[in-house]
């Protein structure tokens, strides 16, 4: 499945939007304007973007604590997202959720998740809905290399096979779970683990937008055809520390230098597009500028927005009564 020029332009815009968004969240956090902690997606843009481009609006994703990129790629609006992260009433979740709980069911984004491994069972559920109601949808569970060890992930792989669900497990392997290296914490081989459940699985270069897109598209096709779940093990890079407060001393300066200079999926896509002549540099620059403006506007609006009215503290606990009981 090849990407059209239009697709590529859209992909570039999405990746650039995620990068700019995260850069700005970082600035806001450093300036003390993000009330809680936040986990930046910068460096991993090709994964969220390539995966979500292979999905339709009716498909569902389940995200992680590092969810801004998935949210943007699946179509959440950056304005409310930024407001949510700043704890404002105009936020995606009215300020109740914050960075780790952004969700928008209208675009099939079932929620970031503060629990490592919390998502895969939920994705099985979304896939069960698709299968039972014959909607033709697929569900994607994003998980980190750390989350892959959590029992919930293993259970979900098995359940997905047993129920033959249209679900795709995307393992975003950025080499780290907080300050612990996956080389230490994740024994064996993730693709082989999935194969142990009889599941179709492959290793994917997560820094290559087209590799991500193509492998996901193939998995989506299989899932829609009723041919069952897949696991895609995507190798990628986390540019910042684990969260905004992490000084990141467990990685050597040299390894960080190499990473930023040689393993930036955005630089790589840009270079490929220009070199191949598919999109000219000027168009990309224009996109950059537009994105910059849009994110600027989101930040300004978020800063200016009101904090939620304390009167809303007790609303939205239950559907059937206005206040917690």
């Amino acid at each position, binding site marked *: 499945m090849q990407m059209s020029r239009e697709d590529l332009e859209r992909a570039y815009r999405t990746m650039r939007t995620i990068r700019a968004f995260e850069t700005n969240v970082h600035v806001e956090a450093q300036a003390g304007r993000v009330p809680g902690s936040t986990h930046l997606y910068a460096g991993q843009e090709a994964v969220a973007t390539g995966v979500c481009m292979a999905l339709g609006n009716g498909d*569902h994703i*389940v995200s992680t604590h590092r969810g801004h990129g998935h949210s943007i790629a699946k179509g959440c609006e950056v304005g409310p997202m930024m407001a949510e992260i700043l704890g404002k009433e105009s*936020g*995606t*979740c*009215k*300020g*109740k*959720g914050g960075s780790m*709980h952004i*969700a*928008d*069911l209208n675009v099939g984004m*079932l*929620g970031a*998740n*503060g*629990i490592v491994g*919390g998502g*895969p*069972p*939920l*994705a*099985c*559920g*979304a*896939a*069960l*809905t*698709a*299968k*039972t*109601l014959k*909607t033709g949808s697929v*569900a994607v569970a994003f998980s980190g290399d750390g989350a892959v060890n959590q*029992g*919930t992930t293993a*259970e*979900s792989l*098995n*359940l997905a096979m*047993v*129920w033959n669900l249209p679900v795709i497990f995307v393992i975003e392997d950025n080499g780290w779970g907080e300050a612990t290296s996956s080389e230490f914490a994740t024994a064996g081989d993730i693709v082989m683990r999935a194969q142990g459940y009889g599941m179709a699985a492959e290793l994917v270069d997560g820094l290559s937008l087209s590799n991500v897109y193509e492998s996901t598209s193939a998995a989506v096709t299989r899932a829609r055809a009723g041919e069952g779940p897949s696991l895609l093990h995507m190798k990628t890079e986390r540019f910042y520390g684990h969260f905004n407060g992490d000084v990141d001393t467990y990685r050597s300066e040299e390894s960080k230098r190499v990473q930023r200079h040689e393993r930036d999926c955005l630089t790589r896509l840009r270079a490929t597009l220009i070199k191949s002549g598919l999109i000219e540099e000027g168009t990309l620059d224009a996109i950059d500028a537009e994105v910059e403006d849009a994110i600027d506007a989101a930040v300004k609006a978020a800063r200016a927005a009101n904090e939620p009215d304390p009167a809303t503290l007790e*609303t*939205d*606990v*239950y*559907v*059937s*009564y206005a206040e*917690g*009981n």
Partner: protein
Amino acid sequence: MGRKSFRAALNEALHQEMKADPRVVVFGEDVTGGTGGDGEQDAWGGAFGVTKGLLGAYGRERVLDTPITESAFVGAAAGAALTGLRPVVEIMFVDFIGVCLDQVMNQAAKFRYMFGGKTRCPMVLRATFGAGARSASQHSQALYPIFTHIPGLKVVIPSTPSDAKGLLIEAIRDDDPVVFLEHKMLYDEQGEVADQSYAVPFGEARIVREGPDAAIFAYGRMVGRAEAAAAKLAEEGINVSVIDPRTTSPLDTETILEFTEETGRVIIVDEASPRCGMAADISSIVAEQAFGALRAPILKVTPPHTPVPYAPSLEDAYLPDAARIVDAVRRSLAHR
């Protein structure tokens, strides 16, 4: 109308709701039983036979056996509920919540609030609970205080076949996550149960018996024991009220306070462990909101702070019984 068992009443509720709404699906370990084997395909209907016969009526697409992976399939219920199904998921014994609490506590219960009110998670988590079957420490707990503690959950504990049916139908129709707990010693209890479909609303206590001398609040299997105690006391001319709040969350505080005002004497019978349990919860509401009406200490009749023991002689001593309830009422009345 007719006499039906608690089990049959639950089964009827499931049948009627599955028939009425194609979004209702049922899954859990051995909810059919027999999957993958060469014998009977609907061999169990759950460990207690509650889901027996659903497979034949609604097929494997809506009645699914699962692997023994509670986190995955309870989480799948939550994910399915978010996206358009109305799953009724069973964990065989409520004690097994230990392996999957996260999907209930941090996922299903919190979605709506965390997401700013934009989602619904209409799932029912069914489980059997309670002591008395000589099932020992890991298969006999009550645990409803844990669920009651968690905002975002509704918690239901029927004590009669009729309530079992009506409350389960209400639970399935409810748009919030509901934990529905069935006492394993009640499945064979018989009672009048209407044939047609009906719902019993949450948060409305059942007044089992009215009497001016004291008010006993109890859930589940303890309701019957409270009734037995009340009957015993009535022989001596002591007439007590017995109230079954039926749901712990929401709680029918109004009725509880009303009967406190009327009687001035409160006894709470609770099968759960005593610390931070339902007896404590109700007691504290009464002590805060109806203090002026109290004429005696609020008494809790609960098991001791121990795991549930296996041997009959120990388990019988563990559980509150009519004699202990009678004694508590007497102690309450001794206060002038």
